[in-house]
């Protein structure tokens, strides 16, 4: 019986794993898990698909059929002969009014455009730490350059303001070393006022020195106005908000009281009320002809409004810092301004960034409220002159679609940036 047992088959390699069942892989799996995981989700998915399809089917031919070359809504209707189609001609004819307002000189459109382009260059080093730090020099120059480009007039005006601020800073640094923060600040303010006063003679003497054609604030409008209000108010309200937040935490009762009353008052009042005050009530306090610029009044009001909100966001950041940080600063022998600048604020602001960005996005969209006080921002242009003109009255979707697009691009950009920033600043590495 030496016969070896008759082994018909010996497997030398493992069975190759068979492909997963079709329901457990790839697209099908993703769809099952995400869209049809249970019967409620299935119903919601089907409903969503139905509505999305309905919207696309209805809007695509309307957009595709659009008319681009007519000069009034009536002609659009004639061209379309009753078929469904958009009248894009209104955008062709009025795009410049929607972007720049209807009174900004056409030959000067390059100025706000360039200013916007430079804005991106200016905020890049602030937003992205990896960029070379000497780009911040340009960021410091930018506000003055932007003012000159948009409002025009002689280059000397912003130069004098810039010089006064530099003089103020230098005076502050010198005096702070010698005597301390408070006297340093006072000297700085005096230096600013002095240089401004002397500089006003120079600008008065040379109004044509490297001058651009001046444009009055009243002539600004369109999306440009939204961008101006948004950027100026956000950048002014952050420092103001920091001051208010610190003031609210102060041990000095008067300062604390003022800050609390200010913040709670502003937060308790709707923005639209403040805008009406800026437009209507303030003009009673000035004689005719010496009116404070309407844009300036609105900028002041929106800045105060958002400063109150940002102050509360930053207060949240300050409260989140452990007590030990404050005590550590004290034990190092730092005085209050030094402790705040070197230890507390850098950490508190880092925590507050998402909140500040949130306020900034909200504020940027709130700038469209100025249309109710008859300023022609993007929405004001649409509601007022464009949809009330003889040629275009009765047109809505085309105009508001452009407005939606413009705002979406900016706000989505800001939101994506803040998410990226949160990932960058995350210190709890998993």
């Amino acid at each position: 019986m030496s016969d070896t047992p008759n082994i018909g088959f010996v497997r030398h390699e493992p069975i190759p794993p068979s492909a997963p069942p079709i329901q457990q892989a790839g697209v099908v799996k993703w769809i099952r898990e995400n869209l049809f995981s249970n019967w409620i989700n299935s119903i919601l998915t089907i409903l969503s698909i139905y509505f999305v399809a309905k919207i696309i089917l209805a809007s695509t031919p309307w957009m595709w059929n659009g008319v681009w070359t007519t000069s009034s809504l009536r002609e659009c209707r004639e061209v379309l002969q009753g078929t469904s189609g958009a009248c894009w001609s209104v955008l062709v004819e009025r795009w410049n009014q929607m972007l720049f307002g209807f009174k900004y000189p056409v030959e000067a459109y390059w100025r706000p455009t360039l200013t916007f382009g430079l804005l991106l260059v200016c905020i890049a080093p602030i937003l992205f730490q990896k960029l070379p730090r000497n780009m911040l020099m340009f960021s410091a120059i930018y506000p003055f350059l932007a003012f000159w480009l948009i409002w025009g007039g002689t280059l000397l005006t912003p130069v004098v303001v810039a010089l006064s601020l530099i003089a103020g800073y230098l005076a502050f640094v010198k005096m702070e070393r010698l005597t301390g923060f408070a006297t340093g600040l006072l000297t700085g303010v005096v230096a600013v006022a002095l240089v401004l006063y002397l500089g006003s003679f120079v600008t008065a003497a040379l109004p044509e020195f490297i001058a651009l054609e001046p444009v009055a604030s009243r002539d600004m409008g369109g999306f440009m106005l939204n961008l101006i209000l948004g950027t100026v108010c956000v950048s002014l309200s952050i420092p103001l908000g920091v001051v208010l937040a610190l003031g609210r935490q102060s041990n000095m009762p008067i300062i604390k009281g003022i800050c609390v009353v200010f913040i709670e008052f502003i937060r308790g009042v709707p923005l639209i009320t403040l805008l009406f005050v800026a437009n209507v009530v303030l003009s009673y306090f000035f004689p005719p002809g010496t009116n404070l610029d309407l844009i300036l009044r609105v900028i002041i009001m929106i800045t105060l409004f958002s400063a109150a909100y940002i102050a509360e966001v930053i207060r949240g950041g300050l409260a989140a810092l452990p007590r030990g940080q404050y005590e550590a600063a004290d034990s190092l022998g730092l005085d209050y301004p030094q402790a705040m600048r070197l230890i507390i604020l850098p950490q508190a602001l880092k925590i507050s960034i998402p909140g500040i960005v949130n306020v900034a996005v909200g504020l940027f969209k709130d700038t469209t409220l100025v249309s109710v006080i008859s300023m022609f921002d993007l929405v004001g242009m649409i509601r007022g002159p464009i949809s009330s003109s003889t040629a275009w009255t009765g047109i809505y979707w085309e105009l508001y679609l452009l407005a939606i697009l413009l705002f979406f691009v900016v706000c989505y950009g800001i939101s994506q940036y803040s998410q990226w920033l949160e990932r960058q600043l995350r210190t709890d590495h998993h």
Partner: protein
Amino acid sequence: MKKTVFLGALTVAGLAAGLVSAGTLDDVKARGKLNCGVTTGVPGFAEPDANGVWQGFDVAVCRAVAAAVLGDNMAVEFVPTTGKTRFTALASGEIDLLARNTTWTMSRDVDLKFEFVGVNYYDGQGFMVPASLGVSSASELDGATVCIQTGTTTELNLADFFRANGISYEPVPIETGSEAAQLFLAGSCDVYTTDRSALAAQRANFPNPDDYVVLPDVVSKEPLGPLVRHGDNDWGDIARWTLNALITAEELGVTSDNIAEMSAGTNNPEINRLLGTEGTLGEMLGLDAEWAKRAIMSGGNYGEVFESNIGAATNIGLSRGLNAQWKDGGLIYSPPFR
């Protein structure tokens, strides 16, 4: 520099608060521009065109006054106002003249301290309904939802009308005319009510104008006219007589075509007085002799202004109706130039 200007402004504000309305004519001349309040846009009455130049029936009044006072009908700074901001803009001195289809009412004239200088358009409130509703008179509108602009006299007239007729309605308040028209077209309200001129203008641009009818009822008197502040009668006179000059020019047959010829002198003494070849009417106003000639040349006489902005040949297509000259059975009537 800014700061000194600001502080100076504050000081001056304190000193000059009581002198707000003294010498508007001098202010305008010194400024070289007329600050004129207009709407943010009403088709045919005031609207900036594609080049940003204001056009329209109310705008023509501003241009005529600027031409009379400053000699240049483009020397106008148009200040857009809403129904809510218009009166404070005028009262605070931000504007010199408000030409913004504003209804002349007693309380606005007396209580708000304004002076209406005349009427450039006689309007009346009307109702527009879809033809399919099958309504032939406003008194059949019991229980209707009504689209209405807030902050206007039409809102108050509507309440009066429905109360007087003992019927009920449900208001749908809306901010601007174009939004009201959109909601009306979308069927959010059965009735759209506002001044009949605006109804006609909106209806002309509907996709199917024939599907909508303007009811024959006129439920209010809406004399629309330019106004100035109380207290500066000299300035009020200039605005009033500039408007009257346009009206008289139509009555006397002076048009922008024949005015050059007529200003050489005619055998009608009233034309001569109007155009400054006889008498001293301009001097009495504190202006030069040719003030009215410039005002008329700026956009034509009243009839020409009407026809080119809102007349039958335009998209708006309004007929003269009440706004015909008194000789033709209308209400447009100017006191004599004597």
